[in-house]
């Protein structure tokens, strides 16, 4: 099975520094199967045109292919309607979009409070800070008020009692990641949404960048109001992301970007917006990217997320067991496999994560090192950086064995 999957990813047969590539940086971006690459080149070779604008054949073909992906996406995440899907450039843009629309909507008032968690990626912190900052300084935010932060415990799990104590009638939005890109923690989104709704009138935004690629999600059963994720972390091309928003909410949000394709009528003294979701997508979309993303969704559906999830759980379990046996190595996040996704962040005593990543690279092994855009989390953990291995459907046990062997070689070089 995995052998067949691996054949679909041409890049996996590349050699790096004269070694077989072992790609363990999937949380940053995943590799792309031939089907995705071919869908994009086929579009440019045979169907390229702008969408929803022309009556000519190519434009009709392009539009049909593009619209098809709305349907696939809605189905993939269990959305009630295709009108709830907004395409943007990635998770980051999706959250920024949500924040901008929210800031100018009836859901926000200037005295409002926003809650995030200690484990958030910068892209689920800064857009909210931008609403709360007094904007007195052009070099950064310097006066952010009313941002509340849910604590994590020593196992990297959210303290829900703390969340409960933070919720008030002033809370307007709670923004949480579904799965942490560092700790791997799977947050109990359903439970959190229930708690938020029982104790406030806040909306809930979920950053699903690390969840949608790895497990079957259903936005309706989660109960949240917004859900954001990126195509490139789930076999699709870069430059495509999704913001899902509940229709009842979306209908009450103002647009944030103005231009072609988002209007019904324009005069010099007034304009009428198009219906949702087009009202939120001004300008020419990333048409080929969205079509490539559609091919990625097909690939994932065909393989089956339950199989992917099962395979990854086995890998993570094997990885944690193997790494735990290495003296001087510390793993972050929950050790209970049922509570974690497929990222494993760790540090090795006496070897800086950057040095470890460089040594591993010399053996063809790609991992990530640094703070993974979660500086506040690393501050909380009291470290400046971690090394991170992250898995996807084409990874095997032998990849983990290579990782372990590489770490041992680094220990030898650094004499630790």
């Amino acid at each position, binding site marked *: 099975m995995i052998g067949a999957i691996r054949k679909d990813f041409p890049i996996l047969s590349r050699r790096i520094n004269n070694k077989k590539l072992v790609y363990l940086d999937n949380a940053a971006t995943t590799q792309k199967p031939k089907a995705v690459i071919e869908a994009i080149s086929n579009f440019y070779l045979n169907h390229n045109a702008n969408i929803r604008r022309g009556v000519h054949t190519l434009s009709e073909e392009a539009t049909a292919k593009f619209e098809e992906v709305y349907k696939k996406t809605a189905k993939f995440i269990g959305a009630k309607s295709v009108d709830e899907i907004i395409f943007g450039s990635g998770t980051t843009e999706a959250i920024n979009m949500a924040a901008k629309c929210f800031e100018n909507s009836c859901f926000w008032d200037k005295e409002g409070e926003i809650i995030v968690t200690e484990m958030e990626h910068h892209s689920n912190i800064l857009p909210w800070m931008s609403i709360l900052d007094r904007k007195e300084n052009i070099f950064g935010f310097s006066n952010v008020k009313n941002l509340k932060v849910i604590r994590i415990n020593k196992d990297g799990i959210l303290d829900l009692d703390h969340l409960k104590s933070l919720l008030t009638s002033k809370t307007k939005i709670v923004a949480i990641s579904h799965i942490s890109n560092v700790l791997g923690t799977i947050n109990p989104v359903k439970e959190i949404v229930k708690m938020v709704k029982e104790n406030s009138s806040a909306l809930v935004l979920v950053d699903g960048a690390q969840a949608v690629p790895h497990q079957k999600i259903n936005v309706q059963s989660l109960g949240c109001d917004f859900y954001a994720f990126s195509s490139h972390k789930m076999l699709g091309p870069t430059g495509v992301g999704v913001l899902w928003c509940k229709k009842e909410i979306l209908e009450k949000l103002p647009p944030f970007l103005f231009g072609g394709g988002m209007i019904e009528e324009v005069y010099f003294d007034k304009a009428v917006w198009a219906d949702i979701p087009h009202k939120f997508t001004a300008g020419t979309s990333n048409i080929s990217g969205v079509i490539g993303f559609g091919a990625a969704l097909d690939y994932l559906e065909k393989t089956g997320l339950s199989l992917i999830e099962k395979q990854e759980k086995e890998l993570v379990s094997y990885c944690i067991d193997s790494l735990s046996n290495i003296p001087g190595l510390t793993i972050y996040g929950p050790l209970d496999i049922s509570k974690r996704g497929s990222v494993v962040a760790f540090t090795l005593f006496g*070897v*800086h*994560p*950057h*040095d470890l990543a*460089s*040594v591993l*690279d*010399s053996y063809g092994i790609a991992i990530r*090192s*640094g*703070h993974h855009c979660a*500086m506040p989390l*690393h501050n909380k953990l009291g470290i*400046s*950086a971690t090394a991170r291995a992250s898995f996807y459907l084409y990874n095997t046990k032998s990849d983990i064995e290579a990782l372990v062997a590489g770490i041992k070689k680094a220990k030898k*070089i*650094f*004499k630790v």
Partner: protein
Amino acid sequence: MYKEEILEHFKNPRNKGVIEKPSVRVSVKNALCGDAITLTLAIRGDKIEDIKFSGIGCALVTASASLLTEHLKGKSVKILNDINDTFVLKLLGGEITPARIGCALLPLKALKQIKK
């Protein structure tokens, strides 16, 4: 990249610490990895009487700071104008991969602030 000399300077960094009441103090951060380095210098007349570095860093940052401070200590401040990227990379024995050049040059980035 991890030559004996680099590893030796990483394990036993020279001039590690902070000079109390320094003539100059400069700090830089590498936003990519969170590494941070602070240099303190004691300058008398035009001579660098003492120079120390502190902070957290990978082997390349640490070895680069160690080698660089070793080179500068006791010299005339004029030398600060002559030290450039090429010089520091040579000091480290070359062969730094592109992704790590930022690490290798972090201490120099701090030094450059002094000239300003």
